[in-house]
């Protein structure tokens, strides 16, 4: 009965799909069967239901028979559910009043040799769909207004790219950068591969554009303190640290104030090679072009304030808190260099002539500490022989970084070329394990380096020792098979990229997950490269792993475009197929909070589901110990009705009820169909959004009603569409098996399997195996009879 207490009126449409279905299944028999089902007021078999004629038949039936719900028994809902939802919407029904019975991919195509059993299975599938359809409720898609502003965290090249694209599309952007200038690491590099453009020459115009764009509010020397709310309305609190220089007065002349400053400290923007004053400008092209006082170094002498011609130095400047309301957040927090002193055998920090990639970048930079000369820091003389050591802190499990940092081969190839061009007589060698030059123009770049006379030595350096006349590098030339030692003036450690530790705060404020390599995890490692698991949050650049400048720029633009899609209309539609809480039943145990992969549930006294965040996997509903959480679609009562309908006749032995996750296993079952992989007819499949949705009560109901076995199938571990739903399913199955054992049911009657959408053959084989296993076990309950005292005789 529907809400009004009236029994629902259901129409059933059985598709021939030409001969795709009709050649195996007796469609007329199915139609006659459907007519006998409760609540069905009209049933038809149609040549092609998805054709205009087929759809028009449904539409006129809805009007003529006053249908409340429609069941289409045809192909997979993954194919035509959107089509038929549109059809019934056009006929005046709510789009969610549709249920499909998958009698093609999961019946006629996979049981071509057993038409009678397949027809019986199709009857069950139709009965299950009708049972569910009787319990469907209209669901309204709600639109909520959103803030069209976007927060970009991190002002490196990825963040700059994102901010400019958003602003140019007319969205307001807040660009927050923790350092006094934007530009990130790119602003500090010398020329960049594969074109050997001057890095700052191509970046500085972009930085200036950010500063000039009225749609971008640039907040440098600022940090994020708190983020609340969800997609559409993130409430962000942050703080701008005092520079002790008034940005509106500072003219950026810097020589006056820093010339007067008596304090010198190592310059972090030269990675310790050069020095700067306590009042400083990070780089000559800083944006904004405003000085900054380093309070750790400043002695408060007041000389800079006296020297400043614009009276811009303000010692009483205070930190300023700011609050933002944004619809989306782009995380472009970048990377940090591997600390080379952790590889003690290379002597960085002990031997002055051992330097890192970033230091050689600064040396090569005409604006750097050596004005472009490649010198031995110990003597200040020009280095005549230089070794690059690759994979320092990358591809190295001893330091916990098994991954390749992806850019170091190319950056060493580039730096070696720059040195060789400046000093043609220099002996330049690259000690490498593998040269990775995959990218447009990269292999050609490698060839260019070889032609310039740079030596390539295959073998990882085991140690560097300082002798009286230079550095001795120990290695095996693995291509010659000889262990060797060679003297160099200068050794450059090609240090890898690590996840930025400073970004961990932002990560935990947003609830981002991190991969084992500690970089932020994206929603899908291949298909969703800039989306986070959290709606409305996007990740660009090296925050999600090492990448080159051009890829970071592309990701910045991609993230901007994703944010635009989300916010452009100024409102977002909330998917109504979410979870909700019965507050009367909820006991506030918080089990659901930890279960939810989208962090959509919070608990005060009782649980509350943030519908904007919920993705409808249903794992919480299955986890709730008091059944206080329910799903608006795929509800407990709908699934239980499907189970009861499936087991009503039980026309086969062994009889299996299967719960397949929509994204992988159900799609895998569809693939078995399109590939015509044949398997036994014994299974009745119920589609759920996630394996984590399967409530223990579903399994027990199926077994109680006479199913000989229950199969739960989900995405392969690590590939769950909802991150961890399959893990929850696995955990629940383990517990449930123990419970079955206790009540005397053989736990082997419950099987859990992992199957990707591409693994139709694997799913078919699992079903085959399960059928055989269940034959060995005998009908459900055999074990209970055997355990009875009389059964022993």
């Amino acid at each position: 009965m529907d809400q009004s207490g009236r029994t629902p009126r259901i129409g059933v449409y059985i598709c021939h799909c030409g001969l795709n279905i009709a050649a195996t299944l007796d469609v007329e028999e199915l139609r006659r069967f459907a007519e006998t089902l409760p609540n069905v007021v009209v049933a038809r078999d149609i040549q092609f239901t998805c054709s205009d004629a087929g759809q028009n038949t449904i539409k006129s039936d809805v009007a003529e028979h006053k249908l409340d719900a429609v069941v289409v028994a045809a192909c997979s809902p993954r194919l035509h559910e959107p089509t038929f939802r549109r059809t019934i919407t056009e006929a005046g029904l709510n789009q969610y009043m549709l249920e499909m019975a998958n009698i093609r991919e999961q019946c006629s195509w996979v049981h071509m040799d057993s038409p009678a059993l397949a027809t019986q299975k199709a009857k069950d599938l139709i009965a299950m769909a009708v049972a569910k359809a009787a319990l469907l409720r209209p669901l309204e898609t709600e639109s909520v207004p959103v803030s069209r502003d976007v927060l970009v965290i991190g002002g490196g090249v990825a963040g700059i790219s994102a901010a400019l694209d958003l602003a140019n599309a007319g969205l307001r952007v807040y660009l927050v950068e923790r350092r006094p200038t934007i530009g990130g690491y790119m602003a500090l590099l010398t020329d960049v591969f594969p074109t050997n453009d001057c890095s700052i020459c191509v970046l500085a115009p972009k930085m200036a554009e950010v500063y000039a764009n009225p749609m971008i509010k640039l907040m440098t020397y600022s940090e994020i303190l708190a983020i609340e709310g969800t997609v559409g309305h993130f409430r962000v609190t942050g703080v701008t640290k005092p520079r002790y220089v008034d940005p509106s007065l500072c003219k950026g002349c810097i020589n006056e104030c820093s010339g007067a400053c008596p304090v010198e400290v190592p310059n972090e923007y030269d990675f310790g090679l050069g020095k700067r004053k306590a009042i400083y400008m990070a780089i000559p092209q800083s944006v904004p072009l405003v000085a900054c006082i380093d309070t750790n170094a400043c002695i408060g002498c007041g000389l800079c304030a006296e020297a400043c011609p614009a009276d811009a130095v303000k010692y009483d400047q205070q930190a300023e808190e700011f609050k933002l309301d944004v619809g989306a957040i782009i995380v472009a927090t970048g990377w940090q260099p591997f600390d080379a002193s952790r590889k003690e055998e290379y002597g960085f920090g002990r031997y002055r002539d051992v330097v890192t990639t970033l230091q050689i970048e600064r040396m090569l930079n005409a604006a750097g500490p050596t004005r472009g000369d490649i010198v031995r820091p110990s003597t200040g003389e020009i280095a005549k022989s230089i070794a690059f050591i690759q994979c320092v802190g990358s591809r190295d499990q001893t330091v916990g970084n098994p991954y390749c940092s992806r850019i170091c081969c190319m950056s060493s190839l580039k730096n070696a070329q720059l040195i060789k061009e400046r000093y043609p007589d220099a002996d330049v060698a690259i000690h490498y394990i593998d040269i990775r030059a995959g990218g447009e123009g990269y292999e050609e770049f490698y060839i260019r380096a070889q032609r310039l006379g740079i030596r390539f030595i295959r073998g990882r350096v085991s140690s560097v020792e300082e002798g009286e006349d230079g550095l001795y590098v120990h290695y095996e030339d693995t291509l010659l098979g000889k262990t060797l030692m060679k003297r160099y003036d200068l050794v450059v450690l090609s240090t890898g990229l690590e996840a930025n530790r400073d970004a961990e705060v932002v990560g935990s404020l947003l609830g981002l997950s991190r991969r084992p390599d500690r970089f932020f995890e994206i929603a899908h490692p291949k298909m969703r490269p800039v989306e986070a698991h959290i709606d409305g949050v996007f990740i660009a650049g090296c925050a999600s792993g090492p990448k080159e400048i051009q890829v970071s720029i592309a990701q910045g633009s991609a993230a901007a475009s994703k944010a635009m899609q989300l916010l452009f209309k100024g409102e977002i539609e909330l998917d109504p197929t979410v979870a909700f809480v019965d507050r009367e039943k909820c006991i506030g145990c918080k089990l659901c909070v930890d279960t939810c992969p989208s962090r959509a549930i919070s608990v005060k006294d009782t649980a509350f589901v943030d519908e904007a965040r919920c993705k409808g996997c249903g794992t919480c509903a299955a986890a709730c110990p008091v059944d206080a959480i329910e799903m608006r679609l795929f509800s407990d009562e709908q699934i239980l009705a499907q189970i009861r309908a499936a087991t009503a006749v039980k026309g086969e032995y062994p009889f299996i009820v299967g719960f397949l996750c929509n994204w992988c296993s159900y799609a895998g079952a569809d693939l078995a169909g399109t590939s015509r992989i044949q398997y036994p007819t014994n299974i009745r499949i119920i589609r759920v959004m996630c394996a984590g949705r399967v409530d223990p009560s579903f399994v027990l109901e199926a077994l109680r009603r006479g199913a000989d076995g229950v199969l739960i199938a989900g995405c392969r571990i690590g590939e769950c569409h909802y991150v961890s739903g399959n893990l929850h399913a696995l955990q629940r199955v383990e517990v449930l098996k123990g419970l079955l054992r206790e009540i005397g049911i053989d736990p082997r009657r419950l099987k859990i399997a992992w199957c990707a959408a591409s693994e139709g053959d694997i799913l078919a084989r699992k079903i085959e195996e399960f059928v055989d296993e269940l034959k060995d076990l005998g009908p459900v309950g055999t074990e209970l009879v055997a355990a009875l005292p009389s059964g022993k005789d």
Partner: protein
Amino acid sequence: MDDAAFTDEVIRLAGDEIRTCIQCGTCSSSCSTAHLMDNSIRRLIRLVLEGRRDEALSSDSIWLCTSCLLCTVRCPRGIRPKAVVSALRQIYEREGLRNRDEAFERIFMDQIRNKGRISEVLLSAAYALRNPDATVPIMEMGIELITKGKVSLDPGTVKGMDEVRRIFEGLEND
């Protein structure tokens, strides 16, 4: 034992990280005896992975390893090259391919059994008697060492010979 079974056995004994070797040469360039070896440690691992059993087992390198473990500490893939050497030694001995310094080992073990420690002088002397051609060069060095007090003729007996005996009994019962 066929080639694949040889690879599998070494991997079982020394860890399946071996399969992840990238032949970078960190192990061999860290090795203090690499210059004496016919096959570097890196190459030894290659021979194992390619199932080149005879070449691997007949290599001098497996007897030149000093177990300093620098290779194991530095390997970027977490492989234990020293464990590979130990595995090869174990297979070699089990297969009855006796070490050519078997005589040396016997003298060595006899001294440990009797005194709990070895005397370099007596060990060298006993070994020299079996290999007279090697005697002259080591005698010169021996005299030099004795005159400088670097070695003594009678090293004495360790405390706890009972325990030494028990260890030997335990080993022999294995």
